[in-house]
């Protein structure tokens, strides 16, 4: 059976509607959302209410968490100080806009969802703020999936959709302890695991303005990355009219983050 995974809607109502319409057209009725319903975009209440109305199973993203808990993450929340300053502006604006009811909904979201061997998180099983980038250390990536007890880890947060298969892994070790001479060594065979990043509905950074999401077939484990065009100009105009930083509209109209990349994917937020 096909199911759809969406992430990082970021208060972009036209993009959210376009993606949900695309999913509906395919007759898929199981949708999982990996959080970040709000932040950056101009329609936080509308997007939260759309997700609530549709009853979409959702886990909490880093923006959703920060709106509830306050900005107490360490420096890893943003890839640069410039991005942090802009993010703080957007945080304050979003905080002012969101209704108490919608804040309560965000507060009620779990940090992960699990269906059998599938695990759904926003950033990583360690933290909503940790980036699992497509080229991060393969062993560290596998550790995130394996330690969480999953076969397939669905995540978002990077705004770059990808499917990463980790296979044919092994680690040879040699042990010496205080009581025994050095042993002959042994080899651990690592299991095959997969990380699926759903990209971003409301703030794509993969080089195109199209919203992205993924469809997973739980019988074949095949994953399809989907792109959906929507009225980007409409959202950009709403960003400017709302008084949010204009660079949010600029990057939405270009499809990539402005100048920054997370440098240390292995860093785990120490909040």
């Amino acid at each position: 059976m096909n199911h759809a995974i969406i992430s990082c809607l970021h208060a972009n109502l036209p993009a959210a509607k376009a993606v949900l319409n695309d999913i509906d057209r395919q007759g898929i009725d199981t949708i999982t959302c990996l959080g970040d319903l709000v932040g950056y975009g101009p329609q936080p209440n509308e997007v939260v209410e759309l997700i609530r109305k549709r009853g979409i199973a959702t886990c909490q993203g880093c923006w959703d968490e920060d709106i509830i808990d306050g900005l107490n993450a360490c420096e890893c929340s943003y890839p640069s100080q410039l991005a942090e300053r802009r993010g703080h502006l957007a945080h304050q604006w979003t905080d002012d806009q969101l209704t108490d009811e919608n804040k309560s909904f965000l507060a009620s979201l779990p940090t992960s969802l699990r269906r059998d061997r599938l695990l759904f998180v926003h950033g990583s099983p360690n933290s909503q703020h940790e980036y699992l980038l497509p080229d991060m250390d393969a062993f560290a990536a596998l550790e995130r999936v394996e330690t969480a007890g999953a076969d397939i880890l669905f995540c978002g947060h990077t705004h770059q959709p990808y499917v990463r298969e980790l296979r044919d892994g092994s680690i040879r070790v040699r042990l010496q302890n205080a009581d025994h001479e050095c042993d002959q060594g042994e080899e651990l065979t690592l299991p095959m695991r997969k990380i699926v990043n759903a990209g971003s509905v409301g703030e794509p950074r993969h080089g195109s303005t199209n919203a992205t999401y993924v469809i997973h077939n739980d019988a074949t484990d095949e994953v399809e990355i989907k792109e959906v065009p929507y009225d980007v100009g409409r959202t950009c105009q709403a960003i400017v009219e709302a008084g949010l930083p204009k660079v949010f509209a600029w990057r939405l109209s270009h499809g990539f983050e402005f100048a920054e990349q997370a440098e240390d994917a292995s860093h785990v937020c120490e909040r």
Partner: protein
Amino acid sequence: MIERWALVSGLLGDLEAYDLIQRDLKKTRGVTSLFVLGDLVGPERNCDALLDRLKNPHRGDLKPDCIYGWWEEQLLAERGFRGERKADALRLSQGEDAVNALLNTVNPSNLNWLASLQFGFIELDCALIHGSSSDVGDNLTSETSPLILLDRLTRLNVNRLFTARSTKQFHLELTGGGINSQVKDLNGKREQQQEVPKRSVIGIGAGLNYTLYDVGSDKTHFLTAGSKTNPKRKGFA
């Protein structure tokens, strides 16, 4: 001079054990540094005398470089040095009596010094941490999955991680292996191959059990203070 480190942990306020280690080190050739990887304090005995000795070494003592461990973390949290966090882990695992016992073992005048201790040291290509890069309470042993050990090394980008939380002495070396990965995105597919870097995790022991590390030769020696163990028999390169 070739460096030789002594690595100690889990003294739990035991000044006698520390004194025995210092005496051992005086008789051992070439020890250039003494690192005390946390758990200076514990709930069983008054710890002030040991803390005073660590802060004010006796003449002839190897000067210790200390970091904080799990017990210090619990104490400092309960005493309000960790924001809203309290000694939750201790309370959960050993109960309220253990928390109260811990509070009574350290004079408040020592708290600021304990709070000034760092989480860990990076020396050369080695990390010296009570638990791991993940958490001060991370209990790494020789039984821990090598995948997790490699992750803890990778997070710090070091070749050796000296850890103390487990109280065990072990030297687990990652000697080989690899992994393939395929990334598919909207630009297509790409294959990656990665080899296991030659890295090690070393458990340094606790209390009277301590470790010597020869930096130049990458050899570890597991020792017990006050015993007549020949370090050569337990060396590991």
